[in-house]
């Protein structure tokens, strides 16, 4: 009898434990993500709408939002393009030192961001090793911020795209070639569509990371109000002045905008993935 009832249960789902795993997921996300994030909003509510509005529409804050989002978007866009290129080289070709280059990709994750910031500033300052070759200033301008953000966001797209590229069925490319397509057509029509979901995920991760980045940027940015002052720095400044409500207000606005952008990317990704998953 026991065997019969057990058989019935496993029919519904091959791996049991939906209740347990779902419960754990909710609890975990609540403790790790939801509670800390709601503190931001709770803190903000205590300041009243007028103060809140005045804080977040302050010209210096607005300028920082604009700078933060634009530099993060540019950096993650650059990472998306070159990340695909690096992933391509690492999966498609065999060359000496391939393992070393593969390992190098992850380094920006391991390096303390302050170290990265100081190093980049030294290199890109007007008389630095790399900076001297540019006719315009790189460090202490938005261009410098973008470079720091590219540095810290590099691994995301590479690591997202690499496994997908490795698993693309070779037959599809061969079929494309046998039907008369040249390499460019095969890449654009066959390979690239397969990579889109992975590129979007990598882009989203890189973007989210870049928005919140503080350590590496403050060194290379120069932190001039209205010009090279990023939002996380504004938040830090406010905290140092014991203006907790002000800091959380700025943070809350960033959170909302970030969430909207990430949510849009997720929808886009779900839509591209759905098209050929056959569901």
């Amino acid at each position: 009898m026991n065997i019969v009832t057990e058989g019935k249960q496993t029919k519904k789902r091959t791996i049991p434990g939906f209740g347990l795993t779902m419960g754990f997921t909710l609890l975990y996300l609540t403790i790790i993500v939801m509670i800390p994030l709601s503190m931001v909003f709770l803190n903000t509510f205590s300041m009243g709408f007028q103060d809140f509005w005045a804080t977040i529409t302050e010209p210096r804050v607005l300028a920082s939002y604009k700078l933060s989002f634009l530099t993060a978007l540019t950096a993650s866009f650059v990472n998306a393009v070159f990340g695909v290129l690096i992933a391509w080289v690492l999966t498609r070709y065999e060359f000496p030192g391939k393992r070393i280059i593969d390992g190098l990709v992850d380094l920006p994750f391991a390096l303390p961001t302050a170290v990265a910031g100081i190093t980049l500033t030294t290199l890109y300052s007007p008389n630095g090793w790399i900076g001297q070759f540019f006719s315009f200033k790189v460090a202490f301008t938005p261009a410098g911020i973008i470079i720091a953000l590219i540095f810290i966001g590099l691994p995301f797209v590479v690591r997202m795209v690499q496994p997908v590229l490795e698993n693309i069925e070779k037959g599809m490319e061969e079929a494309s070639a046998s039907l008369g397509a040249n390499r460019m057509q095969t890449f654009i029509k066959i390979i690239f569509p397969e990579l889109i979901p992975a590129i979007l995920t990598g882009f989203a991760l890189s973007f989210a990371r870049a928005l919140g980045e503080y350590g590496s940027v403050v060194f290379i940015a120069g932190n001039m109000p209205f010009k090279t002052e990023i939002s996380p720095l504004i938040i830090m400044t406010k905290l140092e002045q014991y203006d907790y409500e002000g800091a959380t207000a700025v943070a809350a606005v960033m959170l909302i905008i970030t969430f909207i952008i990430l949510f849009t990317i997720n929808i886009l990704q779900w839509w591209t993935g759905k098209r050929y998953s056959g569901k």
Partner: protein
Amino acid sequence: MSIIIENVTKYYGSYQALRNIDLEIKSGELVALLGPSGSGKTSLLRIIAGLEQAENGKILFNEENYTHKHVKDRNVGFVFQHYALFRNMTIFDNIAYGLKVRPRKTRPSKEVIEEKVTELLQLVKLEGYKDRYPSQLSGGQRQRVALARALAVEPNVLLLDEPFGALDAKVRKELRRWLRRLHDEFNVTSVFVTHDQEEAMDVADRVVIMNEGKIEQIGTPEEVYDHPENPFVYDFLGSVNLFKGNVHKGKLVTGNVEMNAPGSEDGAGTGYVRAHNFIIEREPAEKDSIASIVDHIHTIGPIVRIEVIRQDTNEPLEIELTKEQYLNLEISKEERVFVRPKELKVFVDFMAGI
């Protein structure tokens, strides 16, 4: 379009996949490359397609040298074992792909493409599926789409790599008949790779039997089955029984029986007898009657497979009878019978004395 393969050799590292292959395929022929896995049949097909390059030798299409032409310029239709459909495209776009990627000068207009694809969809009986994605189709349907996609570019030759290998037995049979009809209708030179001898025999005009990177025999299905040129071919096509022994004055002596082997050279040799080329009797008739004990009886549809053990050497023999013959005999397990080969082919052992 005829295909001539001259002295083709292929290595994978130090492993030699193809050894000096020579093969001529006539225009409009349907040829099967048949062999066990690792025999080099797929490598040969991929070299004909241009998906791989031979180290040595030449590939000629209609007597024109195609050896160094890129696969995209060879105008071959290639069908893969695992379909290799473009999963981000609808069935319609999959079939239209080969026409759409042509350079602007030779690309047909949208209307012409649409017409052509619709025609092909009718041919493969998938008219209602043009807006679906490959993942929504069954294996047999996917392979039909792959065929339509290959035919859309009006290829010089159609190359199929184990096209029905991933399908179940019934669909497989249906599709190979359909492939034969399609081939006759389009009259395109076709080469297909298979490890299934029944499939090769059923569909092909000629069968090329390959083993360890070389061609063992080329011929029509009847020729290779009825007149195998060497032990490998004999062994590979259908179940066969071996009688190891010595040939002396036109007789093969094995165990304590003597079999007629006219025309065979004296020396160590092996007799080959197909499972269906035996007579089972209750009494010994000639010197070649082998006293045996019935060990197993399996009925497989219209065929009855009987395993007997030779009493002289204790070796098993596999015999196939029709159901009718079996019922007339009225034999059962453990019974003593006499087995006589109807047809015997002796190959002298090259390995003798080693």
